């Protein structure tokens, strides 16, 4: 390798088969206490409903389990290992105190149906987090029930529908900018709305004139990400909100990029009627390899009557309670009260920051993105020169002339010890490199990243084939995704003899 990286080096990686391949009868990792009630005759009790055999479920010992999952874990990249610049994913530090407090006995063991009298601590957590998030967003009310961002979007659009319904017309369409995340159109469809695409202007922002022309009484809402997926703040937000409101429509904000705004600007102040937050992005709850998330939905007063039930209320005696009598509610979007464990973590994060820490966090996130932008400008094509907030989007225009595309640069970045950036969207940038460093990166890590990206750009010029064959240093090389999809193998099966 001509270009060496300062960040990473190879090291021994343990091989490990599937857990089923380690299994053999007579090994076990469980032990039950002796039964203190009479044994039962399962055949007599269950009859034909009795299960006789658990098939190929594994039989392994405890040390094998520890080694199995520990070995697997070492094959992953993670925030704990270094920068994870996935755009719009906000891969920030996941504080360990969050994990600690979420496991305190009494919080971790609370049953969702235990009487309210002995649930005051849990209710206080719901209430305190709600109050904080309402203040941070500048909205009037909130539901914590949705389990993730896309679930929050769905909840938000159900609120929009209920609102319009109450005015006598649910309306038919949701307008979504072409720069939006894929969940936005998928959510609109799930909520029973047709999707109307809104073209971006040459600055990568909402084309206000186009919006004005498209907006009519059939449109229920505009779903806007702000800053948008280019990391650009919608400068005309005031006009956008006015156009929507003038025709009785609502402004929905996808809060995926809220990490650019906390403590600096509040969506409620700039005309947003309903928005979701991603606690697993902005509020530091761990992504955990894909989840769990949490997607609270904050609303203006006009939408409050429609919030999912139950909502938390304060009784005259100061105690907290769940209120179920909500005749205009859209109903439940999830059993129980949402991903409570994530509420604990998000609140611990807010406590650790305070108002000054939250503001400094946002400033550092924006500082980091602009530092990367400056460092890579001229090396990678910047399709929109509009100022960046917390993330920056380049394209592979220069590199693709050598036959190297964003995915290849991404795979090569792995060799340099970094997780790749986001490539799947925004769709308005062909060959996008969407980079969001978050506030969690020290200057040294950013410098290493810029150095790596520059080095790859040089490699593309010198030896594009080498980049096309990346990654070179991982335990496996590029996988055959076409074969995986053509003839899916989605589970292990014992070999038949």
């Amino acid at each position, binding site marked *: 390798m001509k270009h060496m990286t300062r960040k990473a080096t190879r090291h021994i990686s343990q091989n490990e088969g599937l857990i089923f391949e380690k*299994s053999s009868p007579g090994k*076990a990792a469980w032990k*039950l206490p002796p039964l203190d009630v009479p044994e039962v005759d*399962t055949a007599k009790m*269950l009859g034909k*409903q009795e299960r006789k055999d*658990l*098939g*190929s479920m*594994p039989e*392994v010992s405890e040390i094998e389990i*520890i080694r199995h999952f520990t070995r*697997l874990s*070492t094959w*992953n990249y*993670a925030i*704990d*290992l270094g920068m994870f610049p996935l755009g719009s994913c906000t891969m920030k530090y996941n504080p360990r105190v969050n994990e600690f*407090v979420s496991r305190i006995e009494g919080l971790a063991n609370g049953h969702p149906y*235990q009487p309210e*009298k*002995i*649930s*005051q*601590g*849990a209710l*206080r957590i719901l209430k305190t987090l709600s109050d904080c998030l309402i*203040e941070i967003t500048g909205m009037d009310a909130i539901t914590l029930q949705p*389990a993730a961002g*896309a*679930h929050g979007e769905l909840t938000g659009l*159900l609120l929009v529908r209920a609102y319009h319904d109450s005015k006598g017309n649910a309306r038919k369409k949701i307008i979504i900018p072409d720069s939006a995340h894929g969940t936005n159109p*998928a*959510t609109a469809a*799930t909520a029973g709305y047709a999707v109307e695409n809104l073209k971006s202007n040459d600055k990568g922002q909402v084309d206000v004139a186009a919006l004005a022309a498209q907006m009519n009484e059939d449109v229920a809402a505009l779903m806007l990400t702000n800053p948008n997926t280019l990391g650009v703040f919608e400068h005309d937000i*005031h006009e956008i909100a006015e156009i929507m409101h003038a025709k009785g429509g609502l402004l929905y904000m996808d809060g995926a990029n809220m990490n650019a705004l906390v403590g600096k*600007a509040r969506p409620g102040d700039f005309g947003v009627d309903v928005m979701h937050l991603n606690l697993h992005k902005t509020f530091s709850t761990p992504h955990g*390899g*894909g*989840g*769990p998330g949490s997607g609270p939905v904050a609303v203006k007063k006009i939408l409050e009557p429609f919030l999912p039930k139950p909502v938390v209320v304060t009784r005259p005696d100061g105690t907290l309670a769940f209120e179920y009598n909500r005749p205009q509610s859209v109903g*439940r979007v999830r*059993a129980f009260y949402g991903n*409570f464990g*994530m509420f604990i973590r998000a609140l611990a994060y*807010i406590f650790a920051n305070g*108002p*000054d820490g939250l503001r400094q*966090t946002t400033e550092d996130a924006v*500082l980091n993105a*602009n*530092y990367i932008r*400056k460092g890579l400008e001229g090396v990678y094509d910047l399709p929109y020169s509009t100022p960046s907030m917390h993330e920056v989007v380049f394209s592979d225009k220069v590199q693709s002339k050598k036959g190297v595309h964003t995915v290849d640069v991404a795979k090569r970045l792995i060799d340099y010890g970094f*997780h790749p950036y986001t490539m*799947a969207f925004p769709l308005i940038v062909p060959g996008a490199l969407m980079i969001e460093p978050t*506030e969690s990166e020290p200057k040294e890590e950013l410098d290493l990243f810029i150095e790596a990206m520059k080095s790859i750009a040089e490699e593309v010029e010198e030896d594009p084939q080498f980049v096309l064959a990346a990654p070179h240093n991982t335990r496996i090389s590029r996988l055959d995704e076409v*074969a995986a*999809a053509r003839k899916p193998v*989605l*589970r292990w099966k014992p070999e038949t003899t």
Partner: protein
Amino acid sequence: MFEHALESNQAEKRLNTLMRYLPKSPSDRAAMLKAIGVRSIDDLFAPIPAQYRLNRDLAVPRQMAESEIVDWFKQRAKENADGYTSFLGAGAYLHYRPVVIDALVQRGEFLTSYTPYQAEFAQGTLQAIFEFQTMVSELTGMDVANASMYDGSTGAAEAIMMAVRITGRHGAVIARTLHPEYREVIATYATHQGIPLTTVAYTDSGRIDLKALESAITDQTACVLIQSPNFFGTIEDVEAIAEIAHKRGALLIVSIAEAVSLGIVEPPRAADIVSMEAQSFGVPLGFGGPYCGVLATKEKFVRQMPGRLAGQTVDKNGKRGFVLTLATREQHIRREKATSNICTNQALVALMVNIFMVVNGKIGLRELAKQNLAKTAYAADQFARHSKVLFAGAPRFNEFVVVTSEDPAAINSRLLGHQIVGGLPLKKFYPELGHAALWCCTELTTRSMIDTAVGLVAQSERAARTMKEVEEPEVVR
């Protein structure tokens, strides 16, 4: 509004800039601003119109030390039910969680990684998902399972939408013995999908009324959705229900809220889709979440199933590896034509479930389920000596319904005085059952706990009888 009032003085402000999660010194920031070519951080926020910039502190609690944070949450924990014996189930079950679960899921490489889109760099998560899919398929008797859904309630709603896509029909028939909150969630989803819902009652065996089911299914019914063991803990006759559904061209969806039952109860092999809440498998009760839904189905329906899937493949050198596959079902490719809008799932919780399944394994899961069955059988027998235990005509797993003379809410408030949380009063969900409550026993419920609770309920029954005897002469007169 907060206990931690905002105090601000200059010295504290300076100290507060020492934010422990932020890895930059003031000179780092100055150097970076210089490199960017701006004078101050405010220049970078210039794109936000001035009238919308917040020029004050947010009114949230002041920055707290780690010790203060821990203390605040410990105080909240004390206001909760710590140390109580609980007989609550109803979709959220207290089972023992082996300590290796938290030891392993807190490894940073699992905890702080993202969805494994970059397969070469995420083989650990991908192989774990593949193993999870294998074990869920095996336990549910299905061919394939996905990587997870939010929970059992949303999973059930998604399963109905999946059945609508597969059959091209639009209605769903739902058992009244499905978890009432699952039914509420389904109603929320179905309303906006234009899916009419029909609910089918239960008989006095606690099972779905097969005759009523038969007449509820039309040629526009996409699916029948039942829960087994159902909300009352009663095990349904899945085969008989499947036959009725399939005869009319409808699919059968079986919702499983108590995963531990699969250790001893025959899985719903005749179903077309299984929607399971896997919380029982090593996931803390956590006041209702995060939990772990999962969908499993027959191979022929996999392309209509929502949610992520890990598949096995090979790399350039023929080495086995795993990737996320069949992504053309998903929102990031198909946008408004996707099978679902789901993106983030419950990955880390699915890993807890995964480890739980491995720890207990082929034999342990069966033994665990047997203990649940034995404890519940004992408890139901004991309760039956003083009160009416409903639905004795069909097999049950680890829950049962007790009808008392007195309102169970009143009994429960006395039990609380003995540090016992009694069964869930059913008046809110099933008013027709009168003074009924749903009791649950797991392997963690001890005989002495059961005996104490039974004793206190028996006292209530005796008091009620005495009251009746006192009242009755008056009635005669």
